[in-house]
C-alpha cells in the first residue's frame, strides 16, 4: 500500500505481482498515457515534475482513504516524473478487492483524488514549438477538507 513517485519507467509486472492475494477476486487498474492532443492542440511530449516527498505522503493518505471507504484487499499506485513521450505510461493505479464494486470504486477514487491533490505538475510541449504548464486542479482554491483550516491571503 504505497503511492510512489518514480523517475524510472513503471514495471507493470512487478506492480501486478505486488497486488496478488488469495482473497482477491477483482483487480481494477487505471493507466494514464501521454496522448497526442489536449484541448484540441497537438501534443508532442510531456514533462512531469513532482514535489516527491509531499506527493508520496499525500498519495499514501489517498490510498488510506480508499481503504476506509471501500472493502479492499490492496491498493498501489505510481506516478512518473521526467520527460515522457507519446504513449508512455504517466500514472498507474491498481486495486484488488474480493468483489468488483469495491475495486472499481476505489480505483476511480484514487485517480480522481491524485489528480486533484498530488503536488505534481505537467508541462505540455506542442507541435507548434510552444510549451505550457497546465493549471488544472485548483479545487476550492485549495481550501478543501484535506487542506489547511484557514483561507489564503489575497495578493
Amino acid at each position: 500500500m504505497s503511492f510512489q513517485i518514480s523517475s524510472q519507467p513503471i514495471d507493470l509486472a512487478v506492480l501486478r505481482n505486488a497486488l496478488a492475494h488469495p482473497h482477491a477476486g477483482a483487480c481494477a487498474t487505471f493507466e494514464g498515457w501521454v496522448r497526442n492532443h489536449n484541448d484540441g492542440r497537438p501534443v508532442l511530449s510531456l514533462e512531469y515534475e513532482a514535489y516527491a516527498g509531499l506527493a508520496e505522503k499525500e498519495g499514501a493518505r489517498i490510498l488510506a482513504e480508499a481503504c476506509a471507504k471501500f472493502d479492499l484487499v490492496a491498493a498501489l499506485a505510481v506516478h512518473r516524473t521526467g520527460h515522457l513521450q507519446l504513449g508512455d505510461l504517466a500514472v498507474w493505479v491498481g486495486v484488488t478487492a474480493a468483489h468488483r464494486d469495491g475495486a472499481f470504486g476505489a480505483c476511480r477514487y484514487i485517480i480522481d483524488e491524485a489528480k486533484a491533490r498530488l503536488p505534481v505538475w505537467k508541462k505540455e510541449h506542442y507541435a507548434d514549438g510552444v510549451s505550457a504548464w497546465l493549471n488544472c486542479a485548483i479545487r476550492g482554491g485549495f481550501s478543501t477538507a484535506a487542506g489547511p483550516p484557514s483561507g489564503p491571503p489575497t495578493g
Partner: protein
Amino acid sequence: MKTVRIQYFALLREQRGVGQETLATAAATAGELYAELRSRHGFTLPADRLRVAINGEFAPWDASLTDGVELVFIPPVAGG
C-alpha cells in the same frame, strides 16, 4: 529576521530561475513571505491559486515562520 529555505517547482521555478534558495526575511507568515517574493520576482500566480507546505507538510497561509523552516509554494497541480 529569520533564515528560510524555499523550493520552487514548475511555473514558479521557471519564473524564479532557480529550483531553491535560502534567504533572510522579516515576513511573519507564509502568506507575507509569498507576497514579498511575488512583488520581487513578478510571479504571475496569486496566492489564492497556490497552497503552501512547511517542512514537508501542507500548512495554512497564516502559519508563523520560524528560523530554518523549509517552504514550498505549490502551484495548481496537474498530475495524471
